[in-house]
């Protein structure tokens, strides 16, 4: 009997080995969770169905830039369809749909399956968890913002037939592209996670995020129309989309267009100085991060 036991033991049980290597501690835990969440944002390491929505939206956000690139390939003259400063206005709903779909995946799943308990019983602090999640969603959004801007930059450069020359003449576009892109991603991610982290129910979280952007956009439009420029202009500060548009123009140092067909006409009508939208964005960020912090300090695990 003992012989049989040791025989099967040789096959399956190699004996327990202690782990004597390094333990990388809290910072490593945060980085691991960040990378895991970044992958999860695109459904990587998940079933194929989890990839459809994030990849689909990322591709949609790239389409305008790709069109510009395609035009550059066939028409050598510059046919400028999309500007860097206006790009986000074209894709704002795509970005909103992305955060509405992905934020509940990042923060709701762990509440739903109660994996949060396991994270909090590791070296991670609660605030570390929140930081990793906001950072992951912010980074994921770069694919929908900075990547198309880069493609757009290439498209415009190819249209000139002189890549190096275009880059030399226009490299000054890059700092505002990156600054506005990073701020936009951080802004959208914080709003989405502040809302989505309040519930473990995915439908409520997604609905909540979309409802914020849709209702605030509609209210801003209605108040601006009914109250008129001077008072109604402040109503734009309710709307995430308008704030994003405002600080993007401020960063690019471009005034809103007075043309009624322009996407920035609301901002022109409101007549607020563009730095006001920057301040509003920072206030939103502070409030959202505060909400997220409080949520995770209080959540039972």
């Amino acid at each position, binding site marked *: 009997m003992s012989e049989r036991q040791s025989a099967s033991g040789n096959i*399956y*049980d*190699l004996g*327990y*080995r*202690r*782990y004597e*290597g*390094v*333990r*990388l*501690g*809290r910072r*490593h*835990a945060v980085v*691991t*969770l960040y990378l*895991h969440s970044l992958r999860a944002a695109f459904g990587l*390491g*998940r*079933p194929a169905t*989890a990839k459809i929505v994030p990849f689909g939206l990322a591709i949609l956000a790239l389409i305008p830039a790709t069109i510009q690139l395609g035009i550059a390939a066939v028409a050598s003259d510059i046919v400028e369809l999309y500007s860097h400063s206006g790009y986000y206005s074209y894709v704002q709903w795509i970005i909103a749909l992305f955060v509405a779909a992905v934020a509940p995946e990042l923060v709701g*799943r*762990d509440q739903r*399956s*109660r*994996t949060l*308990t*396991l*994270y*909090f*019983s*590791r*070296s*991670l*602090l609660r605030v570390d968890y929140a930081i990793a999640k906001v950072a992951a969603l912010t980074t994921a959004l770069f694919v929908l913002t900075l990547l198309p801007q880069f493609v757009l930059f290439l498209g415009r450069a190819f249209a000139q037939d002189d890549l190096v020359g275009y880059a030399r003449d226009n490299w000054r576009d890059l700092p505002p592209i990156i600054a506005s892109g990073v701020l936009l991603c951080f802004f959208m991610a914080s709003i989405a996670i502040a809302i989505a982290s309040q519930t473990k129910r995915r439908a409520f979280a997604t609905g909540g995020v979309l409802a914020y952007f849709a209702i605030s956009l509609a209210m801003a439009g209605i108040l601006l129309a009914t109250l008129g420029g001077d008072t109604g202009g402040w109503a734009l500060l309710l709307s995430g989309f308008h704030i994003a548009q405002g600080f993007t123009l401020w960063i690019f140092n471009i005034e809103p267009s007075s043309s009624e067909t322009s996407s920035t006409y609301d901002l022109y009508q409101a007549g607020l100085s563009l730095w006001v939208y920057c301040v509003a964005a920072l206030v939103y960020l502070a409030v959202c991060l505060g909400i997220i912090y409080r949520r995770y300090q209080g959540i039972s*695990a």
Partner: protein
Amino acid sequence: MPMLETRGLTKRYPGVTALDSLDLSLEPGIIGLVGANGAGKSTLIKILLGLLEPTEGTGTLLGFDIAAQGPEVRQYVGYMPEHDCLPPDMSATDFVGHMARISGLPRTAARERTAETLRHVGLFEERYREIKGYSTGMKQRVKLAQALVHDPRLMLLDEPTNGLDPAGRDEMLDLVRRTGSEFGIAILMSSHLLGEIERVCDHLVVIEGGRLVRSGPIGEFTARTGTLLVEIDGDHAPLLARLKAAGLRVAEEGRALLIAFDDDRVYDLVRDGVAELDLGLVRIEQRRQQLEDIFREPAGV
């Protein structure tokens, strides 16, 4: 240095005191934490892990202060919660590997230890499938694996047999016992079933209503509280008198005698008494101690 020490640990909720000034000092071993539902077992474990803040009192785990050194101590602690905590759409391999890295292991070490640990808990080919298809028993194994994968010094297991059928219960208890005795990992395991604790643990802590009822080695426990049942053919009065004269505590229960069981000399006295009085011995057995008996008579028979 004790593995676990608490001083005046108290947790009060509005209207309920979950832990009431608990003083514990435990050496490494396999420790059973017994109490009825609501006795404060989970609360104690969660406070030790920093998942809950105590209202009053202090504690140390492995010599680390649980309030001030949470992230450090949690590198060396594994936790298996009572409730579900597994993401349904990940495989056991991916999830346990992820938790290994969250616990501070570098990628390669995490992969190796994940494979070893899953083999130890008895998950083989199925470890590549999504967890949502697992049986309760398999899920419990994954929960145990994620608590063990980073080679902790101490594992806190909250009702590890919860929801298992008798066969699964036996397997889980065997796993816990082997992990503790063969791997040399200290274990604190909670249960509301004394029988489970008896099979696995070498030290017993009984709490009730958030208070410590008793703490001691399991042998001492049964010695102090054990009962020997003796049934003889015919009148047992002479034997009763004789055993009482020998200084034993004896009670009558129907046709049987119940004798407080201090040590093996009780067997000798019964044997000699039966032989010398020329009685027919029908039955002699050590009564299995029920949890309720301990609560009823905390000081012994």
